């Protein structure tokens, strides 16, 4: 909920609004550092050893730890459940999303891969290693003041290491009060079908899905700095 109609004291916010903001910021800061248990079929780790290194070295968060073994599942959609900047967010939203996607997906879903200290582009390495046709990275979004449980999805066709962010499509703000898991799964299935037609994702795949309402987020990944 946007912080509108706060009133004002001189040019400042009244005390209650000011302290409510400070409290929300404190919770968001803590959410970045909190850990959560993620469930899936295969566990992988990036080359970032801990949260501090993850924050300072995004390059390591995009690389698989040496010696990572992954099963081959050629032709599949590989789903990666990644902690990103908010492990609790993906832990809360990913199970419902995957359950809602299973009856809708136009491609078979491979083993669900859980990735720790992971950035979006780690999905390229995972998908390439498994021979996937597409990879959907479900990832904890940077905690905001009003949402510390939000998940995003980045869909990449023909994942190989080195894909740019303009080659992905993004669905963001998946959480209670944002986009529902069911709506996000429907959007993901729609994007996947469109990607199969084009053999591509990214800015070339225009989101022309009829909008039943304005409540249908799905953007090209766009600015790199937007990515967790």
């Amino acid at each position, binding site marked *: 909920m946007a912080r509108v109609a706060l009133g004002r004291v001189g*040019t400042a916010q009244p005390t209650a609004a000011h302290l409510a903001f400070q409290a929300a910021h404190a919770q968001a800061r803590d959410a970045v550092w909190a850990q959560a248990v993620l469930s899936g079929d295969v566990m992988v780790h990036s080359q970032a050893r801990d949260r501090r290194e993850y924050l300072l070295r995004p390059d390591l968060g995009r690389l698989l730890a040496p010696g990572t073994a992954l099963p081959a599942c050629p032709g599949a959609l590989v789903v990666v459940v990644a902690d990103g900047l908010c492990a609790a967010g993906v832990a809360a939203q990913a199970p419902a999303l995957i359950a809602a996607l299973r009856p809708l997906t136009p491609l078979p879903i491979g083993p669900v891969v859980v990735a720790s200290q992971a950035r979006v582009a780690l999905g390229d390495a995972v998908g390439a290693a498994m021979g996937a046709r597409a990879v959907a990275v479900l990832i904890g979004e940077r905690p905001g003041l009003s949402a510390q449980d939000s998940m995003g999805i980045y869909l990449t066709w023909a994942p190989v290491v080195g894909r740019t962010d303009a080659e992905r499509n993004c669905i963001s703000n998946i959480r209670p009060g944002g*986009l529902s898991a069911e709506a996000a799964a429907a959007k993901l299935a729609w994007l996947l079908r469109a990607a199969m037609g084009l053999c591509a994702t*990214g*800015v070339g795949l*225009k989101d022309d899905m009829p909008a039943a309402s304005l409540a*249908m987020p*799905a953007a090209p990944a766009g600015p*790199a*700095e937007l990515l967790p």
Partner: protein
Amino acid sequence: MAFAHSLGGTRHIFDDLRMLLARATPLRSGDALAGVAAGSAAERVAAQHALADLPLAHFLTEAVIPYEACDVTRLILDGHDAIAFARVSHLTVGGLRDFLLAEDDVAGLGLTPEMVAAVSKIMRVSDLIAVGAKPRVVTRFRNTLGGAATLAIRLQPNHPTDDARGVAASVLDGLLLGAGDACIGVNPATDNIETVMRLLEMLDMIRQRFAIPTQCCVLSHVTTTMLAIQRGAPVDLVFQSIGGTQALNESFGVSLALLAEARDAAQSRHPGANVMYFETGQGSALSAGAHHGVDQQTLECRAYAVARRFEPLLVNSVVGFIGPEYLYDGKQIFRAGLEDHMCGKLLGLPMGVDVCYTNHAEADQDDMDALLTCLAVAGVNYIMGVPGADDVMLAYQSTSFHDGMFARAATGKRPAPEFEAWMARMGIGGDAMPEALSPALIGL
């Protein structure tokens, strides 16, 4: 060409201009991440000494990214204004710092982005403020931005699901607190063309209903905006994120030719207006693996060369948005914001700054208050206005409508003149809700 400087008995050697600029840059995490930062405080200051002694003319003979490899380099060198440059062509980088601080008229000097980046690296914060305050860059659409007495505010009414009523409520809240003269600009949560068009139509409806002398923007990808223009949507400004290398712009899905095409399309609707809106930010090139070993602040200045080409209405660095791996804490964000403003102004841009931070950076509201105040003193063209400083869609903190009121009051700045006259007509500024701005008029 190699450069060297001795400090405390150690001779520091820098292989080329690219390395010299990087080593001379005040510490920031992104340059350390890229492996181009100075290894010690002494090496950094030695590089600053060597840089200060470098003639500006040298920058025209050594590119930090090869001419053949990058269209931004070609844009900079092919477009260099040798006649304007004649006023300072005899100076070194250190001499340029002295010149900029001593002279009143420092606009239109024919400086390249790399020269401007270089001089900023040997400046303190007070220098960045003093020099940043000198060039006035005035742009026009439905109002006049950039005048000496003006501090404008982009009203940023983002909503996590692009809900029309939610966006409208934030627009109204901002208008009542004096925001919206730079533009009313929504970052959509989706790039869906139908949604973008609906937001464009809604913003235009509000603007016309209240006869607001401002311009609207939905900050979608340039290709989506061009599609919206083709389909007849009321597009005022064309937005795009841009960067300082060809490879970064490719990662954004844009080229110089595409931006030119988009500007032509928008100007066909609004002849004579500045129709482009660009956002930039230190670290974006490294984030996309498109930095060529150049430090992030020099690359940021090169992005301004791209922006300048298209005579934008608005350009802002989204300085603290990118995160701690590029600007680690409040101190680094603070300096970067002031660098970006001054460098943009020296390169002739109508420079604004999104004074902001994320929740994974070591920064807080106190840091933003300090940067905002210094930018207002430095004459920043505009800042952002977000309800309660909390962007509920992009999940970061920017400046609130209140912060904008504070900055104007603290520095004696005012809204854009046409917008201020509109506020007076509407009765905005008192404690009561002005009758003419009834929420019911826009369906709230």
